């Protein structure tokens, strides 16, 4: 059994977001971190590894410096890493990215017992599209927004956290699961893990590795092959402080209704 986890290096958006004059994100001026939801996926995989002995492979698409992030993920206990990196892949939107990642995952091979895991979404684009698109490309059943995962033989029970409640789904392997932060708390790198991570297997899948794969079509990858066009990126203006009303009595409710009526919300 193996678990393939997709991870992405993203700019740290907890500080100020830097935007280039042409409207694109100024990634160079922001610290690079591992996408937080992806770390939840890695943690879920590590927990399953402890239970089943599964091998964990992380896959990332990005420029060569993303190796540092992949080594850090291996320092947490992941067994091997693959960086999908080529000029031809640069500038891909979610549609193009998911084709390339699906080709990479298919090249590794998804067998009957295997699971593919992704974070729900990356904090730089917030699309939540890549995981589901990979599943569609690979023809795998997908379960998104996993807040709880249990495995019993080839059956995975996933508790999905939705805006209006929970939904529990049973799915058979192989499948793809996207993970949310409520699923777990990612572990730290360990000292032993750090001193081992540079001797663990690390591979680069470049254009030549994947170019003959059936998912790879030169016209639908990279910036030119991406149907999405970004017109502009900007830091949204800060919202004003909200108003909090306390109490569950009639007077508070009337006050709330009054405020909402004044704003023509009701």
């Amino acid at each position, binding site marked *: 059994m193996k678990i393939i986890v997709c991870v992405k290096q993203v700019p740290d958006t907890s500080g100020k977001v830097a935007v280039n004059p042409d409207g694109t994100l100024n990634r160079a001026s922001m610290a690079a971190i591992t996408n937080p939801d992806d770390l939840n996926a890695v943690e879920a995989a590590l927990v399953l590894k402890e239970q089943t002995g599964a091998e964990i492979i992380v896959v990332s698409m990005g420029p060569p410096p993303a190796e*540092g992030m992949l080594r850090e993920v291996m320092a947490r206990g992941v067994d091997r890493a693959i960086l999908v990196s080529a000029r031809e892949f640069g500038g891909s939107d979610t549609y193009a990215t998911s084709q390339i990642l699906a080709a990479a995952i298919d090249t590794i091979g998804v067998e009957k017992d295997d699971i593919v895991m992704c974070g729900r979404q990356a904090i730089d684009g917030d699309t939540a599209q890549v995981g589901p698109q990979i599943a569609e490309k690979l023809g795998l059943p997908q379960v998104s927004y996993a807040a709880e995962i249990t495995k019993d033989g080839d059956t995975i029970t996933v508790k999905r956290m939705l805006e209006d409640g929970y939904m529990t789904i049973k799915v058979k392997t192989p499948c793809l699961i996207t993970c949310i932060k409520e699923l777990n708390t990612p572990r730290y790198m*360990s*000292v*032993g893990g750090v001193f081992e991570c540079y001797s663990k297997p690390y591979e680069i899948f470049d254009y030549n590795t994947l170019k003959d794969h059936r998912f790879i079509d030169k016209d639908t990858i990279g910036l030119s092959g991406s149907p999405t066009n970004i017109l502009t990126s900007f830091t949204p203006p800060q919202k004003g402080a909200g108003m909090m009303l306390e109490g569950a009595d009639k007077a508070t409710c009337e006050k709330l209704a009054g405020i909402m009526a004044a704003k023509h919300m009701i």
Partner: protein
Amino acid sequence: MDFHLSKEQEMVRKMYREFAETEVKPLAEEIDEEERFPMETVEKMAKLGMMGIYFPKEYGGAGGDVLSYAMCVEELAKVCGTTAVIVSAHTSLCCAPIFEHGTEEQKKKYLPDLCSGKKIGAFGLTEPGAGTDASGQQTIAVLEGDHYVLNGTKCFITNGNVADTFVVFAMTDKSKGNRGISAFIVEKSFPGFSTGKHEKKMGIRGSSTCDLIFEDCIVPKENLLGKEGGGFKIAMQTLDGGRIGIASQALGLAEGAIQEAVKYTQERVQFKMRLSQMQNTQFQLADMECRTQAAQHLVYAAAMKKQEHGDYSKEASMAKLFAAETASDVTRRAVQLFGGYGYTREYPVERMMRDAKITEIYEGTSEVQRMVIAKYMGVK
């Protein structure tokens, strides 16, 4: 000298930093106030391999290096002097002498549990009448058949109340002076062993400090560490390594105080300007930073020399002397920059100042470090 950190060292420092900020800093004030040993933090550090950083994996260690260990103590001390000394005493004073002087059987028996943090280690050398003059040991060990019988009292033992494994020194032949001192590995469960009261201290108040009491304590003969009569040398070599740990603790305390002072002086407004805009503040902080950076160079140089198996006694003494006096100076200046608020427990700098003082005293006072350095200079 090359101070280029390896990728692994950079990465492991990042991990220590995240861990210290998230797991250690939030507890620092509480464990100081309540004089409570942070066992929950030790358990977390154990899982991450922080209790056996530079020991080989075959003995349960993390397979790291001495500089990575020093950086761990440094990063912990930035936010909590107590947590830093727990790791330092355990690693330098208990794991290290067993690793460096133990037989293969002793290493296999004791190191895996110590390095994995299942057991905590401590070191018993100091006695009420044998502090800086460690040669005045009154604890005696008498060989009786297949075991030694130990009698005496050790004091000011870091980790004393929480440790399971102790490296203890006792006189096996009083007539030989220093050469009559032997080292032993003592387990908490050995008959005749007990611990005394918890010392109430000025700083590092969450760390356990107590007496070790030996009343006809039975120690199996195979728990003699090194040769009979070789204990004083083991003690001195162990303290050389320990000084790197304490120097790292002092370094971290100074760095932590600077971080707090930079933050505070950029917020605090007096005379319609931020304190950080005043030349006095800038000059104070610049001096604090220079001294602390210099201390870091000395500490890292000592750690790297130990890693290379050179004679690092002088480097360790210089690092400890300079880092400890820097920590006391920098934390005192930080309190001054905070003014009245710095004197209250609302801010961490008074704790850092209290914690810093001990680094000038334990594991060899600053005066002892000067004696060692002068000896290496050939000054008699």
